[in-house]
């Protein structure tokens, strides 16, 4: 047990070190800070007219943006992690030592997630403090940010696990990169477009009432956004698919359960794929 933890810690430490050296830590934090600040001060952000605090409003729009950014950063951090080691022939070296495959995978997962968590926490906290400095703070808004950060990490965890699965599924970094772009496009962009198209065609029929809510929370990005918007309890304006946040046929916590289920499934799939990798 102790040996297992030591080896996992060794893998985690080396992955974090690599991310620091390769400037991934600085870069992902910077991206999140910049986008969050831009959203807070440049966008359709707090107009000051509504009763809702500026903090809450930026949290709402940031929830939408996070769906694009966090998965992308998570995938970028992790897609190379195993395919790269296969290509460089370091995987045989690692797997010739007493380390178990699940320990390698766990260590990598924790390492990448730590980097992402750091970026989210630091990046969004800086943005939140900036909003507070300009517009003042309120408890409701602070809670919204805390929720955003916590569920953002969960969303990130799902996509780090997906990235690792992708990486374990191919022996080529190039293929992994192509898969990464494809997965991001399908899960984050095309899925929503397809749902919207379905809503328009169906025009309030069976699809809209029964299938649609389930399909929305079946997607990790949508589940994340839905949970955050629903938790704001009608205090922020919503549009498009997110209208569902007002009329959820189930408790918002189910969206969290969906995210957790995604995480478990992706980790299990990653472990299974990695067992089959021939170093």
């Amino acid at each position, binding site marked *: 047990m102790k*040996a297992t933890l*030591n*080896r996992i*810690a*060794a*893998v985690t*430490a*080396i992955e974090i*070190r*690599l991310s620091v*050296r*390769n400037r991934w830590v600085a870069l992902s934090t910077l991206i999140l800070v910049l986008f969050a600040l831009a959203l807070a001060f440049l966008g359709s952000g707090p107009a000051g007219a509504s009763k809702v605090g500026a903090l809450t409003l930026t949290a709402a729009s940031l929830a939408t943006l996070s769906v694009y950014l966090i998965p992308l950063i998570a995938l970028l951090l992790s897609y190379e992690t195993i395919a790269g080691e296969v290509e*460089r*022939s*370091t995987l*045989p*070296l*690692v*797997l*010739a*030592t*007493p*380390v178990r495959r699940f320990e390698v995978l766990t260590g990598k997962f924790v390492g990448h997630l730590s980097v992402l968590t750091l970026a989210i926490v630091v990046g969004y906290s800086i943005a939140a403090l900036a909003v507070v400095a300009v517009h003042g703070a309120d408890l409701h808004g602070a809670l919204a940010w805390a929720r955003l950060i916590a569920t953002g990490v969960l969303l990130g965890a799902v996509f780090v696990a997906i990235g690792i699965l992708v990486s374990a599924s191919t022996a080529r970094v190039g293929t992994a990169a192509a898969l990464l772009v494809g997965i991001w496009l399908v899960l984050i962009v095309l899925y929503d477009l397809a749902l919207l198209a379905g809503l328009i065609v169906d025009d309030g029929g069976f699809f809209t009432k029964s299938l649609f809510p389930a399909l929305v929370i079946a997607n990790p990005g949508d589940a994340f956004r839905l949970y955050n918007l629903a938790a704001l309890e009608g205090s922020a304006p919503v549009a498009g698919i997110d209208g569902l946040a007002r009329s959820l046929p189930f408790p918002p916590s189910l969206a969290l359960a969906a995210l957790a289920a995604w995480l478990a499934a992706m980790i299990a799939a990653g472990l299974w794929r990695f067992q089959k990798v*021939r*170093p």
Partner: protein
Amino acid sequence: MSDPSLLDVTGLSVAFGSLKALHRVSLAVRPGERFALLGHNGAGKSTLFRTVLGFVSPASGKVEVAGAAPGSDKARRTVSYLPESVAFPKALTGAELLAYFARLKGQTPKSAMPLLETVGIADAANRRVGTYSKGMRQRLGLAQALIGRPELLLLDEPTSGLDPISRGDFYAILDRLAGEGTAVVLSSHSLTEVEARTDRIAILSRGRLVAEGSLAELARAAALPVTVRVKAAAEDAGALHARIGGRRLNGRSVELDCAAGDKMAVLSRIAALGDVVADIDIDTPRLDDVYRHFSGHSAGGEA
């Protein structure tokens, strides 16, 4: 009775689809032995290593590492491996990488650091691997393999890219380890290189073990002829040829082949010719000839 071998390979066959990468290979390596694996490109050397590590499953036959199955905990604690063409992450330093592998092997990073000294890259310990020369990276790979005093070292073409001095250093380290009881299995393309530095040599050709033994045994088994070149005193190879046979080379010389055992008899016959002979050259088969013979790439002759 317990088996004294650290590595036991019995009737091992490995296939990749229809390609037979290894075919009924058997060999055993004992503690303290330096064992060289030779063979042409694609002969199956790396495949043999990878099978011993448990990365590749045999189609038939058996591999045992210290009596345990490849890839088992016991086997992994026994072996250390240096793959061919390993590329460490460029952004990390030598010391960081060594510490990492030490932790994976259940050793403290501190205990591994002296190995950088052993392989002669202590000066570069805190430099990024991206700045290392090929030889330095190879040395780092060796340092990594030495962590935790493994009982069995598997080194796949460890000296490729090393200059002659570094090669010497490298084999000196192996000699010392073998003296302390470590079994060393290494692959190479050059018989000349491993001749004086290993105890036993095995030659793989197209997945089959075609020869195994000490260098002297291999040379004997190859039974390559000794070539004697005789130069006539007067420019009269014809007369010489008439008396000793063989092949006429040019106007002055005659060349003949004889079995290694007959060498002395042939020489004394030539010596008895007295003044007719101006000079004698003897070509004993070189290591590369022995290697070629077994690799099935003989330079000519039987075809």
